[in-house]
C-alpha cells in the first residue's frame, strides 16, 4: 500500500443553496429531450410527431449495448423530432414535446416486481437511470459487471464542486431513500460492505446519512476532507477504502463499485413508484440569478425556463454553465435543455464571467503541486507544443481527469487543463498510429 498524498485545491465552497429544499417548478410549455445525453449509443425515438404522450411514457428506445431508455417528463403532444447541437458540441436527435400542463401519468408506470438479481438489473435498465454525479454512465452497465470481484460499494456524497447542493439535499431530504437503495444494492449484488464518502463541509449530510443507515449492517459513513476534487472517482476510492485504481483499470478491477448518492435514491424511488428518471433536482445559482435555489424540473427544460422559474435575472447573465464552476460546460445560448446528469445551472454576471488576462508561464510549479495525481502540466505543455507523443506517454497525460485544479491555481491564468485535454487527444492519436504501424 503506497502512501501517496493526493493533492487538490481548497475552494470557496459557495454552497449558498444548501438550506433550500428543492421545489417543483410549474410545468414548462415545451421540453426538448435529446436522445443522447451521455456516452454510449443514442436512443431511437419511438413516438411520432403529433402523438400524445404522458408522464413516464417511453419516447426513446435503447439501442444495443451501452445505452439507456428515455421517458417523457411531461404530458402533451410531440411537436417536432429535430436535430440540435448539445452543450458538448455533438449533433443529436431530439424529441420536442409541447406540454398540456395536466401531467397525466402514463399507464405504463407501475412499480417493478423485484425478487432476484436479474429482475433488479432488468428494472434498473428500464428505469433509464444513469450516473447522476455528472458523468452519466448508464447505471445498468456499471452494476451488471462481474459481481464476484466486488466487495465494497462506495457511495459518492462528496459533492466537491462549489455551488452545487443537489446531492446535499438528497442526503438530507431523501436519506431514507438512499439508505433503502443501499440495502437493495447490497442485497441483490451480494456485497457486504458500503462506504458513504461525504465531505466534512456537510456535517448535516453526515449526520442524516448516519441516522438513516444506522440499522444496516456493513454501512459506514466516512467524512472526507473538503478538498477539490474529492468526488473524482479515483480520489474518492483512494480516500474512502484506500485502494488505488491503476492506469487503464476500472473501480471494478479493485473490487469497488462507485455510485452517486442521488443515483441510489433514484433507484429506490423507481422500485417504489415505477416512475422512471424523468425529472431532476438541480441547483440554480450564480451572481446573475435573482433567487438562487434548488428546483425539480422535467428533463428537457431549457435554461431559459429554469431562469424564469428562479425569479429571472438580477443582472444580465454573461456566462451560463451546466455543472459546477470547476468542470462545468459553458453554454452558447439559453435554449439548451436540462439532461439526465445535469445537477446545476450557474448564471454568472459580468464580474464573475470576465475571463482573466493570460500572461506567460512563470514556472512557479503550482500546477504540478496541486495536481491530485502528480502530473506535470508544464512538461506536458512543452511536449504537446513539440508534438511529442512519446514524451506525453511517459508523462501519463492520459491519466488527467480534467478536474481543473492546475488552471485554477495558475497565477498566470493559463488554460492548462484545456491544453491537457488536447494533449490527451494527441497521445491517443499517437498510440493509435503506433498500433497501426505494428500491424
Amino acid at each position, binding site marked *: 500500500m503506497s502512501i*501517496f498524498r493526493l493533492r487538490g485545491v481548497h*475552494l*470557496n465552497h459557495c454552497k449558498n443553496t444548501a438550506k433550500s429544499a428543492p421545489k417543483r417548478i410549474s410545468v414548462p410549455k415545451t421540453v426538448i429531450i435529446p436522445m443522447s445525453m451521455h456516452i454510449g449509443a443514442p436512443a431511437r425515438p419511438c413516438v411520432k410527431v403529433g402523438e400524445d404522450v404522458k408522464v413516464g411514457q417511453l419516447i426513446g428506445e435503447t439501442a444495443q449495448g451501452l445505452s439507456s431508455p428515455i421517458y417523457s417528463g411531461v404530458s402533451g403532444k410531440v411537436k417536432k423530432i429535430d436535430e440540435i447541437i448539445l452543450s458538448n458540441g455533438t449533433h443529436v436527435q431530439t424529441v420536442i414535446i409541447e406540454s398540456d400542463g395536466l401531467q397525466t401519468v402514463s399507464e405504463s408506470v407501475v412499480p417493478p416486481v423485484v425478487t432476484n438479481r436479474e429482475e433488479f438489473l432488468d428494472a434498473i435498465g428500464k428505469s433509464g437511470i444513469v450516473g447522476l454525479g455528472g458523468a452519466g454512465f448508464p447505471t445498468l452497465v456499471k452494476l451488471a459487471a462481474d459481481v464476484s470481484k466486488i466487495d465494497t460499494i462506495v457511495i459518492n456524497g462528496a459533492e466537491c464542486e*462549489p455551488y452545487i447542493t443537489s446531492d446535499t439535499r438528497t442526503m438530507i431530504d431523501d436519506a431514507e431513500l438512499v439508505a433503502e437503495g443501499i440495502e437493495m444494492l447490497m442485497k441483490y449484488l451480494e456485497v457486504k460492505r458500503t462506504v458513504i464518502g461525504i465531505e466534512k463541509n456537510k456535517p448535516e449530510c453526515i449526520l442524516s446519512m448516519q441516522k438513516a443507515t444506522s440499522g444496516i449492517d456493513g454501512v459506514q459513513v466516512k467524512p472526507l476532507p473538503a478538498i477539490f476534487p474529492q468526488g473524482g472517482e*479515483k480520489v474518492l476510492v*483512494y480516500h474512502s477504502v484506500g485502494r*488505488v*485504481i*491503476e*492506469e*487503464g*483499470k476500472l473501480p471494478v478491477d479493485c473490487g469497488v463499485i462507485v455510485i452517486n448518492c442521488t443515483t441510489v435514491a433514484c433507484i429506490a424511488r423507481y422500485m417504489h413508484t415505477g416512475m422512471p428518471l424523468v425529472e431532476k433536482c438541480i441547483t440554480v445559482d450564480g451572481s446573475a440569478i435573482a433567487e438562487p435555489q434548488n428546483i425539480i424540473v422535467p428533463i428537457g427544460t431549457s435554461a431559459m425556463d429554469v431562469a424564469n422559474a428562479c425569479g429571472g435575472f438580477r443582472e444580465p*447573465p*454573461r*456566462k*451560463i454553465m451546466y455543472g459546477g*464552476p*470547476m*468542470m*462545468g*460546460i*459553458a*453554454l452558447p*445560448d439559453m435554449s439548451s435543455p436540462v439532461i439526465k446528469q445535469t445537477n446545476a445551472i*450557474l448564471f*454568472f454576471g459580468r464580474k*464573475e*464571467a470576465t*475571463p*482573466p488576462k493570460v*500572461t*506567460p*508561464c*512563470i*514556472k*512557479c*510549479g503550482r500546477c504540478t*503541486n496541486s495536481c*491530485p*495525481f*502528480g*502530473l*506535470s502540466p*508544464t*512538461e506536458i505543455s512543452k511536449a504537446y507544443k513539440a508534438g511529442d507523443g512519446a514524451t506525453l*506517454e511517459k508523462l*501519463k497525460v492520459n*491519466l488527467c481527469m480534467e478536474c*481543473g485544479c492546475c*488552471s*485554477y*491555481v*495558475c*497565477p*498566470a*491564468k493559463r*488554460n492548462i*487543463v*484545456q491544453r491537457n*485535454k488536447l494533449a490527451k487527444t494527441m497521445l491517443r492519436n499517437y498510440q493509435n498510429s503506433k498500433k497501426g504501424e505494428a500491424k
Partner: protein
Amino acid sequence: MFLVSPAPHVRAKDSTTSIMLDVIIALIPTLIASVIIFGFDALALTAICVITCVIGEFVFQKICKRDVTVGDLSAVVTGMLLAFNLPASLDIWWQAIIGSLVAIIVVKQLFGGIGKNFANPAITARVMMLISFSGAMSKFPAVNDAISSATPLSGGEMPSYLRLFLGNHGGSLGETCALTLLIGGVYLLVRRVITWHTPVAFVGTVFLFALILGENPVQHILTGGLLLGAIFMATDYSTTPPTKWGKVIFGVGCGLITVLIRVFGSYPEGVSFAILFMNILTPHITSLTRRKVFGGVKK
C-alpha cells in the same frame, strides 16, 4: 451573447503581479535597514537599478514588438535584488546601469522574458559586474561606526554575532541585515510564495559543511549574501526546480558550492556562483525529481 470558455470558470486570486508584489513587500524591511546602515546611497542605488530594469524591459519589448510585461512587476524585483547585491558605495552610476541592463535584457529578455530565462538575472548580472568591475564591487562602504571596510568574509575583523545579525557590518547593501531578511522570508512563507525547502536545505548545508571543515558555521550564515541568496534568489521560480525534492537538492548543491568557494576558492564569497551553477542544473534536477503519477503503471 454569452461567453463560452473552457472550464474551470473560477480562478484563484493570486496572479503573477500579486506574487511579485509580495516579493517586493518582503524586500522592503531590508531596504529600510540598508538605508539605516549605509545611508541614502543605498536608496539611490536601488532606485537607479529598479528604474533601469523597468525602462530597459519596456524599451526592449517595444523595439521587439513584444507584449509589454512591466506591469507584472518582475523587473522591479530584479532591480531590487541586483541593487541588494551591490556595495552601496558603487558611486559610478553607469556601472549599476550596465549591470541592470545586462540583467533585464541579456539574461531575461533575450531568452524570451519572464519564466523563460534559465539563469537568475540579478545573480548573473552581479557575477558579471564582480568580474568586470572587481575594484568597485569589492570595496564596501564604512558603516556608521566604521568597523571594517571589507566584508568580514575577506578577512576583516569579525564583529559580534549581534552586530552580524542586525547588519551593522560591511557587505553588499541588502545582504547584511539578517533580521530583516528573515522577516521577509517568513512573510513569503506565510503568503505561500516560497516553500521552506530551498532556504532550509541551503542554509542547513552551509552550517553542516562549515562545521565539518572546522569553520565557524554561524559566521558563515550571518555574513556574505547567504540569507539574501537562500531566501530570495534560490527560490526564484523559473530558474529553480518546482518539485519538493528538486528544491532540496538545489539547496544542498548551493550550500556545498558556497562553502567550497568560500573556504578553498580565490573569491571571498560564493553564493552567487553557487546559485548560478545550480541554475544550469535545474532542468536535470526537475526531471529527476518528477512526482510519481498516482495509479501510473510502468510499461
